[in-house]
């Protein structure tokens, strides 16, 4: 796959230190490029194969979610959150519901909290599998790993479909609970999927983790230091790949995450390989959480009886709610003026902030590594541009 496939390139002259003139090649990668994960563009300057400058260009999927949300009711924005990070709609629903619950002081019944954990962790499973699949696709492993990843993803999507009615845009959470309870037999089906998942991970790892090509192309590539990661507000698997122990599930203990025993996998070198490994290990921890949650889920209501869904008007005030979405910290900042619509509705997108360090990680690397480094950030453009 050539980086200049769909790119425009031009030559500029750069004064060289030894008196001669070197040519610097400026390449515009994207917005239509097979490995930019959507419509993302990078203005790259190359000295031979080496990257000397990289400026990301955003906005090709800026569809005005925040502006539209100011004219919608609180509930009306819920389906829009599905389309932020369209791979993990339920994680977005959760974050938004959490922010509104903080804003209006709503309690969530216990069964609904369990349902949220189950669906949220299933979302993490399918996001990380497809994320790794796309990373390998970017690396040139055309087809096979992504096919394996999507095979597993479909199993999770089937669960979502029978629970919520939609494969991708689940629109599942409500303020004070969840929209629907599990249909009969769903839990058993979900348990089957979760129990079969480690076998798939083993297969995936046998195929990939020790693979020589994968190690050669990812180890020591796109190194992100601890200090820079914290300074640039990196969150999610990328931050933990750099060895910073910060998982909002552990820090905020939102929902009922304090009830589950799970570990936070950390990387050591902060390179692409560590980020890949952190995602793999996180999936194994998610399976642990899922097993516990599916065992302990109590009967009971799934909606807070006191909360009005229609005609919902929170008191004037503001709230910031955040969750550990599969990509990182997904936050919603809401300001209410007492009317049915939020006065200000702000999404804190993990993918956008994680891209802050893209240039730092790519400088000095080869042009072919850009796509791998970008793949290891695991961005979704719906969330970057909103």
């Amino acid at each position, binding site marked *: 796959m050539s980086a200049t496939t*769909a790119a425009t390139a031009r030559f500029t002259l750069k004064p060289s230190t030894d008196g001669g003139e070197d040519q610097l090649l400026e390449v515009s990668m994207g917005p239509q490029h097979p490995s930019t994960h*959507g419509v993302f563009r990078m203005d790259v300057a190359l000295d031979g194969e080496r990257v000397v400058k990289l400026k990301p260009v955003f906005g*090709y999927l800026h569809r005005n979610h925040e502006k539209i949300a100011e004219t919608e009711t609180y509930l009306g924005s819920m389906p829009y959150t599905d389309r932020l990070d369209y791979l993990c709609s339920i994680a977005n629903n959760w974050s938004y519901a959490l922010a509104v619950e903080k804003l209006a002081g709503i309690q969530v019944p216990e069964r609904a909290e369990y349902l949220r954990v189950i669906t949220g962790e299933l979302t993490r499973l399918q996001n990380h599998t497809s994320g790794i699949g796309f990373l390998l696709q970017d690396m040139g492993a055309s087809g096979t790993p992504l096919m394996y990843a999507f095979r597993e993803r479909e199993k999770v999507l089937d669960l979502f479909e029978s629970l919520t009615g939609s494969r991708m845009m689940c629109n599942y959470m409500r303020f004070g609970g969840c929209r629907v309870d599990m249909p009969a037999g769903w839990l058993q089906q979900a348990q089957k999927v979760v129990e079969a998942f480690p076998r798939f991970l083993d297969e995936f790892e046998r195929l990939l983790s020790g693979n020589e090509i994968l190690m050669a192309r990812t180890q020591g590539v796109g190194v992100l230091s601890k200090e820079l990661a914290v300074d640039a507000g990196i969150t999610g698997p990328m931050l933990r790949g750099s060895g910073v122990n910060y998982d909002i599930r552990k820090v905020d203990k939102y929902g009922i995450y304090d009830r589950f025993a799970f570990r936070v996998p950390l990387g050591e070198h902060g390179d692409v390989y560590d980020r890949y490994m952190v995602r793999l290990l996180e999936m194994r921890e998610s399976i642990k959480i899922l097993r516990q949650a599916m065992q302990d889920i109590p009967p009971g209501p799934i909606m807070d009886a006191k909360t009005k869904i229609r005609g919902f008007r929170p008191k004037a005030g503001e709230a910031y709610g955040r969750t550990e979405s599969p990509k990182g910290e997904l936050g919603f900042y809401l300001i209410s003026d007492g009317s049915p619509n939020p006065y200000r509705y702000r999404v804190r997108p993990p993918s956008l902030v994680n891209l802050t360090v893209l240039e730092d990680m790519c400088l000095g690397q080869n042009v072919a590594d850009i796509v791998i480094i970008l793949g290891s950030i695991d961005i979704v453009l719906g969330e970057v541009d909103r």
Partner: protein
Amino acid sequence: MDEKLKAELGKQGIFATTLQELYNWGRKNSLWPLNFGLACCAIEMIATTMARYDLARFGAEVFRPSPRQADLMIVAGTITKKMAPQVVRLYNQMAEPKYVISMGACAISGGPFKQGYNVLKGIDRYIPVDVYIPGCPPRPEALIDAFITLQKQIDEQPLTGAGRPRHLNADAPSEFVVPQFGAHDLEPPQNPGVWRPPLVNISPAGKNESGND
């Protein structure tokens, strides 16, 4: 050619066909889509090409990243005004014969995001569309259905006469105006040569007299 005679000849081991049939058969069974996703629908497009739905069964597994090698543009997702010039340019760069599937509500009309200031309300404002599939996002089955629909359309095209496809008509344009970024909006905001707003009964006065209100 008479269908009965053709079948009879087939039994004798003689294969008879017309140039039109052969030509359309070849075109419809090797549609190479452009590897080009815009938003949510692109994920369903990828899912369609994966093992479970396997778009390869319809001769379309070769997603080409370069517009020069592609026949079919699947506009999968919201087209923002910032992206619209790129989409039109990609379409212009594709070689004839070329087809467009407008996948999902956003590509048809802006979908849920149509009130957005940066959202183009339908790609058919700039380029001609062959098949529309509604849905947000459409399921992979719907995309396959759009594929089959497009194949049927291709199959039925005569090679001569008024109904002949665009690439056999020297007068029909194959490239369209690429909009430019203006100070407040795209310029032009639509291409009247491609798209004219259909008539809709909305009374300016605001009374409820038509079915659309």
